[in-house]
């Protein structure tokens, strides 16, 4: 058990370092000179040179990389190129609350809408309600989030001032409703279909028939005997989604003006702010890897047949 955990931990660290390395390499391969972008279009070549020197960009890439990794090992993500005197970690810490709120909101929408729809559809499989919900899910799946976000803003925030148009200057839940819905609706539709499929196959299994033969009421058959089986794939997806959302969701953040990690990464890419790019990528990688780990541990809580040591 402990051996498994340590091995797993090592794996996670290696993955994160690998991702960071790739991010670093790609930021350096991209054409463009960060020093020029920092100095501005009117700057003289000397000024650009000077800034390049200050940022350490005139040294070999390998030496820059080694220095970056060395600092990383000490928990130092470096200083932003574009925003002078601002450390990458303080910027990320500032953006993270919005991203976390949005991620949780999105995942909640996925569960609260996706699960019940999937359960009802499975229970009424083949019936009118099932087909109607299937169409709803299909629509939900095919709507591009940026379009849905703009539509929601136009009708529910602009035409009817139900929700704030932009930003975060409102009580927490209120400004999160539209972004969360936009973020989660595609996943909700996907969950609904996944839950439906899983649940239909579980409802056909011999132990459900046996539960019926035992004279158990349908409510108990669904909640006690079926739902746990449905949870396994849901937990997998949920963990993945949460990890992914926590890395920042650019489109949603930019449509709704939420200053989260996604927007931070986006503007960093625009200015070739390599420490910031690498830092945001690092955060995203950590979340994905950690959530994967959480998912694996959760399996063992749901299904007694899964044991951690058995890889």
């Amino acid at each position: 058990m402990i051996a498994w955990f340590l091995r797993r931990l090592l794996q996670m660290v290696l993955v994160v370092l690998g991702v960071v390395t790739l991010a670093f390499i790609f930021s350096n391969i991209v054409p463009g000179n960060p020093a020029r972008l920092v100095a501005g279009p009117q700057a003289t070549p000397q000024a650009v040179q000077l800034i390049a020197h200050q940022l350490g960009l005139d040294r070999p890439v390998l030496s820059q990389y080694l220095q970056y990794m060395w600092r990383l090992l000490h928990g130092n993500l470096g200083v932003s190129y574009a925003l002078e005197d601002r450390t990458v970690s303080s910027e990320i810490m500032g953006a993270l609350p919005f991203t976390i709120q949005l991620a949780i909101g999105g995942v909640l929408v996925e569960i609260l809408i996706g699960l019940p729809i999937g359960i009802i559809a499975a229970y009424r499989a083949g019936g009118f309600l099932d087909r109607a919900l299937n169409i709803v899910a299909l629509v939900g799946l095919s709507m591009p989030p940026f379009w849905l976000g703009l539509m929601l803003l136009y009708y529910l925030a602009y035409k009817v001032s139900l929700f704030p148009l932009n930003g975060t200057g409102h009580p927490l839940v209120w400004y999160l409703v539209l972004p969360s819905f936009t973020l989660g609706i595609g996943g909700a539709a996907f969950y609904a279909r996944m839950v439906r499929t899983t649940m239909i196959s579980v409802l056909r299994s011999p132990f459900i028939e046996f539960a019926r033969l035992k004279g158990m009421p349908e409510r108990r058959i669904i909640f006690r005997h079926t739902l746990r089986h449905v949870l396994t794939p849901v937990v997998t997806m949920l963990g993945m989604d949460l990890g992914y959302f926590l890395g920042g969701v650019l489109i949603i953040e930019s449509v709704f003006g939420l200053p989260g990690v996604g927007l931070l990464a986006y503007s960093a890419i625009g200015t070739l702010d390599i420490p910031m790019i690498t830092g945001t990528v690092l955060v995203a990688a950590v979340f994905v890897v950690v959530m994967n780990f959480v998912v694996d541990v959760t399996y063992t809580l749901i299904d007694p047949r899964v044991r951690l040591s058995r890889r």
Partner: protein
Amino acid sequence: MPDAPLQSTGPLEGGPVIAVDRLSVTFPTTGGDGRVVRDVSLAIGRGERVGLVGESGSGKSLTARAIMRLVPRPGEVSGRVLLDGVELGVGATRDPTKWRGRSVAMITQDPLSSLNPLVRIGPQMTEMLRFHRGAGRAAARARATELLTAVGIPDPARTLNQFPAVLSGGMRQRVALAIAISCDPRLLIADEPTTALDVTIQAQVLSLLERTTAEHGTAVLLISHDLGVVSGFCERVIVMYAGRIVEAGPTEQLVSAPAHPYTRALLASVPPIQGELPERLPSIPGSPPLGGARIPGCAFAPRCPIARDVCREVEPELRAQARDGHEAACHAAGDPTWEIPELASTAEALP
């Protein structure tokens, strides 16, 4: 008191526990009339053990599920099932949780998957006691321990806390049996309870089935494709072919003097317990008609060694035979003008 007739000591002490009256199961199909169970009627008395025998696809499992009102969609059931004289699925018994499990219990073929893999044995046993009997947590658990001991689980207290995956197939079938008898049902339907188990375990489970049901006078309907298993366990045997009852009678009578060629062929297919095994076990050539497909005349005629023209034209009725309680649906039964080959040679005589 709508529940009154469902209590475990019914008012009709002498009458049958369960009476099945022209039960049919229909599946919508393109060919045939889709009736995969046709006009099955049977009655089982208190504490009686009756076997239902037939090849796969003969409709025996569907008959059981029709009795339990659990025929998978889009199957439709017609006919009546009376439990202690009360029709199931009507009035007070419209809600199946009022009688399933508590008055009529059933165990199924696959012990490996009839228990929920994600729920501990304990709750799977006690939920029935708690729901049907209103037993408290502690009382239900005590009864579950008792039941597990009765079915020969070595360490019941520990087993209650385990998940099904750690138990062997035989153990799981014992647990399923313990669950099925936990509310002292009037009738226990056992659908191929030993098919998935190896032979030594089979015998143990069967004797367990006998012992546990005898205690409370529970009637048993044992469904099997194995006439050997059924004849060793049951007082009466019913043989099904292509969805119909083709022969029924007391076990001894049916085994010593089968009236239907299909029963004869089934008997010839049972491997001998003593002596040398034949090089090839006799089998019945051909296969039964697929679900609901109908041919004129007797459904067994294409495979029957003694079939005549009349067999291919007129479907024989289930008729009483010379001895009491013996019925058969065969033109040749009880008719001395038909030459009936010796029992042992029936299968070999087939082309």
